[in-house]
């Protein structure tokens, strides 16, 4: 059972789908580096022992009634965190690629900067890089696409290591991209004039399971996200024009 306490209450959410090989270690590592912060594993209808192992490692689990996909799964966590009154939420992936040792830094920046969102980035100073060629090209491409939209360079737009404050939580619990959420979420925030910063983080290579984005899916991913980005841009521009009238 998790409970928000104090004006700086932090919840760590971990979306997971068939991550039995990594989830226990991820939860234990979070407890080790951020003692006292509750961990909520959002299980996207895993067919393996993810739920049992997450609970055994000391996490609360929010099991989905059927497979929703990453965005739906993360949004469920945001919704619950918002309802429970948490001020900050940091998302860490369940595959063990994110280093829990970086969570305190993301949290500190979230509190000190006043930004609505802080991204744990592999590509700003101090971060190390473990990514395949296709993904690296995709990241470069989306950097170029996002730059004129968000007004600055997003070094690691596909990072799933993200911290948000309550204002962003409010927005995301009502509206969150469902399929490949990271990049579109940036546009959603920017259109509301929210700010974000990047913090250098370490990234470990995946040791168990498979990435949901394979090389074959990459082209579909690029087309899908690109369309989502432009739909979001147009949607908010239209709303703004309507308000201006």
């Amino acid at each position, binding site marked *: 059972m998790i409970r928000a306490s104090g004006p700086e209450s932090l919840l760590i959410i971990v979306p997971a789908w068939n991550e039995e090989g990594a989830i226990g270690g991820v939860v234990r590592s979070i407890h080790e580096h951020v003692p006292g912060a509750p961990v909520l594993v959002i299980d996207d209808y895993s067919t393996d022992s993810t739920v049992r192992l997450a609970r055994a490692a000391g996490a609360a689990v929010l099991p989905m*009634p*059927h497979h929703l996909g990453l965005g739906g799964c993360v949004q469920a966590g945001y919704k*619950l965190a918002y309802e429970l009154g948490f001020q900050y939420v940091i998302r860490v992936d369940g595959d063990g690629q994110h280093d829990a040792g970086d969570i305190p830094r993301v949290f500190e920046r979230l509190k000190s900067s006043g930004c609505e969102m802080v991204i744990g980035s592999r590509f700003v100073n101090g971060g190390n890089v473990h990514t395949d060629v296709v993904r690296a090209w995709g990241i470069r491409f989306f950097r170029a696409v996002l730059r004129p939209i968000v007004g600055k360079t997003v070094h690691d737009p596909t990072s799933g290591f993200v911290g948000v404050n309550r204002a962003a939580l409010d927005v995301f619990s009502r509206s969150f991209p469902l399929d490949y959420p990271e990049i579109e979420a940036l546009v959603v925030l920017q259109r509301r004039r929210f700010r974000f910063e990047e913090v250098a983080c370490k990234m470990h290579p995946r040791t168990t399971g498979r990435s949901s984005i394979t090389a074959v899916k990459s082209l579909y991913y690029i087309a899908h996200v690109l369309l989502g980005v432009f739909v979001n841009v147009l949607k908010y521009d239209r709303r703004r024009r309507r308000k201006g009238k």
Partner: protein
Amino acid sequence: MQSLLNVITVLSIFLIALVLLSVRRAHIRVEYSVSWLLAATSMLLLSRARPVLDYVTRRFGIPDTPLTVFLIAGSVFLIMFFRFSVIISHLRDDNIALAQRVAILEYHVQSMKAEGE
């Protein structure tokens, strides 16, 4: 040309019968059957109205009457597919929102049970 129109007539009648049967057996909801019935009836009427097809062919400068039939049939079904895509998208959004709500309520119920114990 006449044999093509006859085939379309038969297919339209078959489609109407299939849709009605499916509605009767509750395999398809009435509101979704309306689109199919409208499309099938339009194709049926069109296939029995050769002068109309010839007029449309001449009016729009289409080189061949069978092409007109395929263009009209294609347009009708494209509109239907688009409509169903809109419906499916709404259903998917609703489904995800419901699943999230169920999961969150389940979580609250379990928490209350744990508190009570």
